[in-house]
């Protein structure tokens, strides 16, 4: 598969993998901020787009490592809404790279089905060019029934935009109904952080256990700000195209070490979320109908984009 490389492990690497898998907890969900492609390109005196291309090749390796480690869900921050501020040449180059990779992906859906990999693109995909929207929507629809492994690609994404669309979804929920006072209308008391969380793009994903950012920056750049309140943040100085399997394994060790310390806080947050859901009738028919309608509308949008 082009998105998952056929990485050849050495004996030592295989031993290290097995050791970490057997001794400690393996994160269920890792989020990657793939930073440093352009700086890498500058250091090697190559074109920026070539740097991004090498970055994608590294992503393929990382996905292989995650697959073999037993990590079920991976989210990558591929393109931010803020990145539209870059030069049109670079933006078009990135879109061309995306077109190439998604087209290759669509040619390999049988292999994706074989491994049970579901592709989700999170973000405001309506900001993308129409042909890219079609490719993205098609990839999502073709793999929507897979449920073993999940690859979320944040494309045209910022956390603020995601939160804004969640609020928008709640505010617009009665647009199709004639009677606002009907039984299906959301009540103001239904609206809390539990409901908003269920309206985010990542509504079917658990929060990331580990956030891995390369290139030495120690900020989150508007990536999954709502979801990572209980995540271990791991920052490394190495540039994305330069990361090695040992950098990856070091992050897993850091997660295994830090996880125990965060466990009490995480448990408290989970209990708070459960309590909130129970007290606010999150599981009531009207709220669940609203969420089902949200899923249905999102699917309808994907179908309309795929048939553009």
């Amino acid at each position, binding site marked *: 598969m082009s998105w998952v490389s056929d990485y050849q492990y050495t004996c030592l690497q295989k*031993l290290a993998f*097995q*050791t970490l*898998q*057997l*001794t*400690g907890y393996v994160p269920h969900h890792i989020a990657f901020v793939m930073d440093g492609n352009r700086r890498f390109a500058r250091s090697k005196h190559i074109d920026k787009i070539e740097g991004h291309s090498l970055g994608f090749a590294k992503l393929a390796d990382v996905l292989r490592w995650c697959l073999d480690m037993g990590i079920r869900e991976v989210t990558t921050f591929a393109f*931010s*809404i*803020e*990145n*539209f*501020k*870059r030069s049109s040449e670079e933006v078009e180059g990135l879109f061309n790279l995306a077109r190439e990779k998604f087209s290759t992906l669509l040619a390999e859906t049988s292999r994706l089905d074989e491994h049970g990999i579901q592709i989700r693109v999170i973000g*405001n995909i309506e900001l993308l060019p129409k042909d890219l929207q079609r490719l993205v929507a098609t990839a999502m629809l073709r793999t929507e029934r897979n449920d073993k492994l999940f690859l979320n690609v944040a494309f045209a994404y*910022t*956390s*603020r*935009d995601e*939160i*804004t*669309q*969640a*609020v*928008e979804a*709640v*505010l*617009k929920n*009665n647009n199709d109904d004639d009677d606002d006072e009907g039984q299906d209308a959301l009540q*103001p008391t239904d*609206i*809390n*952080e539990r*409901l*908003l*969380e269920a309206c985010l793009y990542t509504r079917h994903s658990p929060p990331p256990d580990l956030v891995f950012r390369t290139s030495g*920056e*120690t*900020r*989150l*750049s*508007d990536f999954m*700000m*709502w979801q990572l*309140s*209980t*995540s*271990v*943040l*791991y*920052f490394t100085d190495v540039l994305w195209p330069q990361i090695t399997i040992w950098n990856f394994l070091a992050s897993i*060790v850091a997660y295994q*070490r*830090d996880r125990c*310390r*965060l466990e*009490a*806080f995480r448990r*408290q*947050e989970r209990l708070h979320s459960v309590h909130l859901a129970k007290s606010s009738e999150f599981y009531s028919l009207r709220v669940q109908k609203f969420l089902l309608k949200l899923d249905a509308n999102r699917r309808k949008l994907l179908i309309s984009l795929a048939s553009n």
Partner: protein
Amino acid sequence: MLQILCILIGRLLLMGIGAYELLQQLYYRLHALASRSYDYWQCDDKHEFVFIRAALDKLQKLPQHLVLVIAPDDCYVNDVLLKRVFGYAQFVGIPYLSVYDKRTPSTGYVHLSQLCQTMASDTNDRHFLWPPKEIKEQIQHQHSNGCCSKTAVVTNGTVNGYASKGPHYTQLQVYQIDSADGHALIADVCRELYETRKSAQVEGMLKERQTLHDGINAMLSKRLGFVVPEPELGIVFARQTCTYGLLPWHVRFTEFHTHRGGRYFNAKSFVKILYKYARCEQRWGK
């Protein structure tokens, strides 16, 4: 057989890491004891401000808003440390500082009303000034007699985010951030908008996402009760880096630096963090 070997290696690795961390923690505590003893022997903190003064000249930029994040399991951050940090921030000219303390009163939570002067205009008891008036007069007296005697008292903080050349005696604005200011506040704003969804204002906001985004931003600022720049620098007092639910809307570009629990926090630590912040390049997506 291989599995047993892997488990053994893994356990040894974890034991090794645990032992290393224990020794490291022991070293930090001994170092903290020695440093605290040295500072106590110094009798006052003049030497720290001399050090900061010298470092200020080399800093290209300073944050306008600093946020301190204290982990729920931290037991080292107390009122003494907070006062020290407030003093450093006020001295270098950072105008705004927020404290996000995830502890409970029984595990070390510090209410800023014990340390700072409450703002007269603040009705919800979360907006403070540092130093309180009596300490401010004391500090001004000390500085005019002791170190930094050549520098004048200025009434402004940093100018356009760049380090100014002298110490500042303007009171630092300090905010106490609650857990309810994070996800719950955004939900409250959503609920408020939902209750008035038929109004022309909300319908106008729903026409374009950017308008709704700006509306949410304005409402959050109003609800928080303080209109300040977004935090540019965050210091996490914990043994691991985590946001602990800090202001998900506001900290999107905040540079986080972790000050490991147990390590002594002094002027050198503070300046080191400022140096790291000054060196980082904010590209804003470009």
